[in-house]
């Protein structure tokens, strides 16, 4: 086998390898060196990580298993320092030497750091890799003020991220308008106004000359003598190709490593691809052209007659929430161009197309970018636009027709990966695809910036017609251990009669034999939900809090929160709590936000005996289950009360306590619309009215504050119980594990839930399954007290002296 070596384990390089494997899986023995200690990840999404929308794990494109499956030798955290062109081998910084027959250089680029005094101080960074990103996140925890130098794409995305992290942010820009290379002055000023309203502060036409501070940055000085304070400085003024290895090894380098139309460098059998390469005097900094280069290079290396690479026209978008912007081609009028323009200042929409000789040569869209793919096709294909309506959707922010049927097959849908509508439709038809995930996998569409996903989804819906299942199409695999989605998992459990977590992972061929912290708790939940009362819970597949029946705290101690049904207690219970707290020297006794008492800072080994002495049921303050039912004092005492809220709250809590649910569930019961128990922001809230109860659902008081929606108005407590049982059971059966009711209702639709619950038969069946499930629960604290085995396994600490 021929030996293929690649320097650089980034987006363009690994894509090239994927293309090579597709064309010719067994032709090469492949070795990859990557300087970063990670597998290939989606650099584009670093902006999303900084903005708090995703996690590092989710942006990994090729997990380590991918390298293994494809028999690729991967050296991470290891840089190649020299290429010996004569001996055809590379040498790494760890002294490793690897010979090659073909060599790809894909070293990307580095952030350009201004060569000014102080640029090496602590707290100054570029924005290029996950390291930079983590450094910024860490800084935001400790410091308040950030300055981003550079009002281009990267700079604005970084600034938005830092705002999300709670910092105050100044953006310094040398020119009078933002993104001046992509936007004309009108679009630029709309953008600036929007970002200012989001909280960014702009320092325009400022040239930074010095970074000041002791060890750490304290501020910046500008050429005009002014000054800005800063605890963190992010330089986002541009990138420079990473060419040092090539240059030092005698390969011809200009701005980048110079390549011909087949990505060949000046050295034999050495190629370059990505941001390190310069083709026809252009170095590209977006993935779309780089992936095109990768495809051509793959054909070349595999010995397939390849069409030459002739360069690319690129389009730009900004990944900042609340900003919809697209630009491609030329921006400025000259004597030979004419503009077609739409400007709706009121709705903040601006579109301009530059035309020369009946052909589009430039596009700027702000506020509504629906036309971008169509216009970009006309631009890149140099279509004659005589008699063509340029802006289909007239000037309004309302979603246009989104008409997939009328979209030509060669229209580009995924700009990053160069995937057309035709290619997507064909893949769906010939390979029987039904989910967005599958389409991405087969065609690459949506695998980079992700902007095209809604349109890919529309194409999927259009192609499948009646067979399209919107909910199922969104499905993704439950974790990295498998490619199976939740729906498939549930179907398989039912079909194959699987009864344990281990069996599921075994039979469904998990690639990680014993699963992980994402899938094991989820499988355990689904099994319990499906098999109702006969399933034996797998305690070791639960995460710490549910396994220990106590909430772990930062120092490894636990909290103990006993039930206090409906927030109602007695003097005797309070006394018991007080005595136990005193005896065990509990560091904190506190009223929780859920109307009960919490004992915090308890040692693990003290848990069982404290529970025993308390002799109260667990309040499950740690579980994916019913937490609390808050009540107001209600008609028993309050002058406005119309219903007995405490009694209903207690009845609900007693009935549904311990029930396993996809995520935690909280309830509130108020006896009148003044709503003193805050029932409007609970998973299920009950509000007493004259002669009945209103039932609100999908409220949330947590991260995404959401007011509940009225599900139904009923007359009696019996109806309340019936409705609640059916609603909760429907949630248990259809929600994804770890999906709270608020998100679930938004996903499946309130109307849909109402429709299901309006059907008496269905309600009855749901309640039957609920009641059967409720039979299996036993009080966990008591169980622990009575079982030596549980006490020894989970709560014992063994102290020995060395040598004994």
């Amino acid at each position, binding site marked *: 086998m021929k030996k293929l070596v690649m320097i650089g384990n980034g987006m363009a390089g690994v894509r090239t390898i994927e293309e090579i494997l597709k064309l010719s899986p067994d032709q090469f023995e492949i070795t990859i060196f990557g300087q970063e*200690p*990670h*597998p290939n990840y989606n650099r584009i999404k670093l902006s999303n990580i900084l903005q708090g929308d995703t996690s*590092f*794990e989710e942006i*990994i494109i090729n997990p*380590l298993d991918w390298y293994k499956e494809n028999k690729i030798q991967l050296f*991470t955290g290891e840089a190649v320092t020299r290429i010996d062109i004569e001996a055809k081998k590379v040498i790494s910084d760890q002294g490793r030497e690897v010979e090659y027959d073909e060599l790809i250089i894909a070293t990307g680029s580095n952030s350009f750091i201004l060569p000014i005094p102080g640029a090496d101080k602590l707290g100054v960074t570029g924005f290029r890799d*996950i390291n930079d990103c983590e450094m910024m996140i860490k800084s935001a925890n400790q410091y308040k003020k950030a300055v981003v130098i550079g009002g281009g794409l990267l700079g604005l995305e970084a600034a938005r991220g830092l705002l999300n992290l709670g910092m105050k942010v100044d953006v310094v820009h040398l020119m009078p308008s933002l993104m001046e290379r992509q936007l004309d002055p009108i679009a630029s000023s709309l953008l600036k106004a929007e970002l200012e309203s989001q909280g960014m502060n702009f320092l325009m036409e400022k040239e930074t000359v010095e970074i000041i501070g002791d060890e750490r940055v304290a501020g910046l000085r500008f050429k005009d003598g002014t000054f800005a304070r800063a605890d963190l400085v992010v330089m986002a003024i541009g990138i420079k190709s990473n060419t040092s290895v090539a240059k030092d090894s005698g390969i011809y380098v200009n701005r980048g490593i110079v390549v011909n139309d087949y990505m060949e460098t000046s050295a034999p059998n050495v190629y370059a691809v990505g941001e390190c390469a310069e083709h026809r005097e252009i170095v590209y900094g977006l993935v779309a052209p780089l992936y095109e280069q990768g495809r051509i290079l793959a054909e070349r290396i595999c010995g397939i007659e390849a069409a030459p690479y002739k360069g690319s026209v690129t389009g730009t978008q900004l990944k900042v929430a609340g900003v919809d912007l697209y630009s491609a081609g030329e921006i400025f009028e000259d004597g030979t161009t004419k503009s077609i323009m739409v400007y709706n200042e009121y709705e903040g929409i601006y579109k301009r197309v530059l035309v020369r000789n009946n052909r589009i040569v430039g596009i700027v869209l702000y506020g509504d970018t629906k036309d971008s793919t169509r216009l970009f096709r006309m631009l890149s294909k140099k279509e004659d636009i005589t008699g063509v309506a340029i802006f289909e959707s007239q000037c309004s922010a309302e979603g246009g027709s989104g008409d997939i049927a009328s979209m030509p097959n060669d229209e580009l849908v995924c700009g990053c990966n160069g995937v057309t509508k035709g290619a997507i439709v064909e893949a769906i038809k010939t390979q029987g695809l039904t989910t967005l995930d599958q389409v991405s996998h087969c065609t690459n569409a949506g695998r980079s910036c992700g902007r095209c996903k809604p349109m890919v989804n529309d194409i999927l819906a259009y192609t499948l017609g009646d067979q399209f299942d919107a909910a199922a199409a969104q499905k993704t695999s439950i974790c990295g251990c498998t490619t199976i989605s939740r729906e498939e998992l549930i179907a398989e459990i039912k079909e194959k009669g699987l009864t344990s977590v281990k069996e599921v992972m075994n039979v469904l061929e998990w690639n*990680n*034999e*014993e*699963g*992980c*912290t994402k899938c*094991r708790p989820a499988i355990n939940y689904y099994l319990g939900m499906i098999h109702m009362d006969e399933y034996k819970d797998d305690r*070791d*597949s639960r*995460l*710490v809090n549910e*396994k*220990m029946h106590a909430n*772990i705290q*930062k*120092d*490894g101690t636990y909290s103990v929160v006993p039930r206090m049904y409906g927030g109602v207690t007695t003097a005797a219970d309070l006394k018991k709590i007080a005595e136990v707290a005193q005896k065990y020297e509990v560091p904190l006794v506190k009223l929780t936000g859920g109307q009960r008492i919490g004992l915090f800072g308890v040692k*693990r080994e003290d848990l069982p005996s404290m529970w025993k002495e308390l002799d109260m049921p667990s309040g499950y303050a740690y579980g994916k289950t019913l937490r609390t039912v808050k009540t107001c004092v209600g008609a028993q005492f309050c002058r406005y009360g119309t219903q007995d809220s405490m009694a209903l709250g207690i009845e609900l809590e007693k009935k549904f306590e311990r029930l396993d649910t996809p995520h935690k569930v909280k309830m509130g019961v108020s006896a009148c619309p003044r709503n003193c128990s805050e029932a409007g922001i609970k998973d299920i809230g009950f509000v007493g009215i004259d002669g009945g109860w209103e039932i609100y659902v999908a409220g949330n008081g947590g991260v995404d504050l959401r007011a509940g929606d009225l599900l139904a108005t009923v007359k009696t407590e019996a109806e309340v119980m019936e409705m609640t049982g059916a609603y909760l059971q429907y949630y248990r059966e259809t929600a994804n594990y770890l999906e709270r009711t608020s998100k679930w209702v938004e996903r499946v639709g309130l109307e849909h839930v109402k429709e299901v619950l309006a059907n008496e038969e269905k309600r009855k069946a749901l309640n039957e399954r609920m009641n059967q499930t409720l039979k299996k629960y036993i009080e966990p604290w008591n169980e622990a007290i009575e079982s030596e085995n549980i006490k*020894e*396994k*989970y709560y*014992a*600490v*063994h*102290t*020995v*002296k*060395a*040598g*004994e």
Partner: protein
Amino acid sequence: MILTKTRTLVANYSNLQVKAGYSVKIDDNEIALFKVSNGNVFAIENRSPHPKGGVLTEGLVSGEFVFCPVYDWKISLADGKVQAPDEGKVKTYQVEVEGNNVYIII
């Protein structure tokens, strides 16, 4: 300096439960002992290398790895290394199993 190593009897092999952490304190060393599915026993320091700390005994065990219960880092029981994308290492201790006796060598 002469380094002496001590062998300490810490547990009864058959009492150790598979996929559950067993916490042992030898003098001042807080140690987490794990028996994994293939029967091997590992001992590591009972402290996550995460900057904010956390214990490991109560973590979820998968193969020869434990997930830190507080911050979900994946840690190798065999060499103590934290798995990518996180970084770090916990101290590992040598374990000897003789008959039904489990020893830790410090």
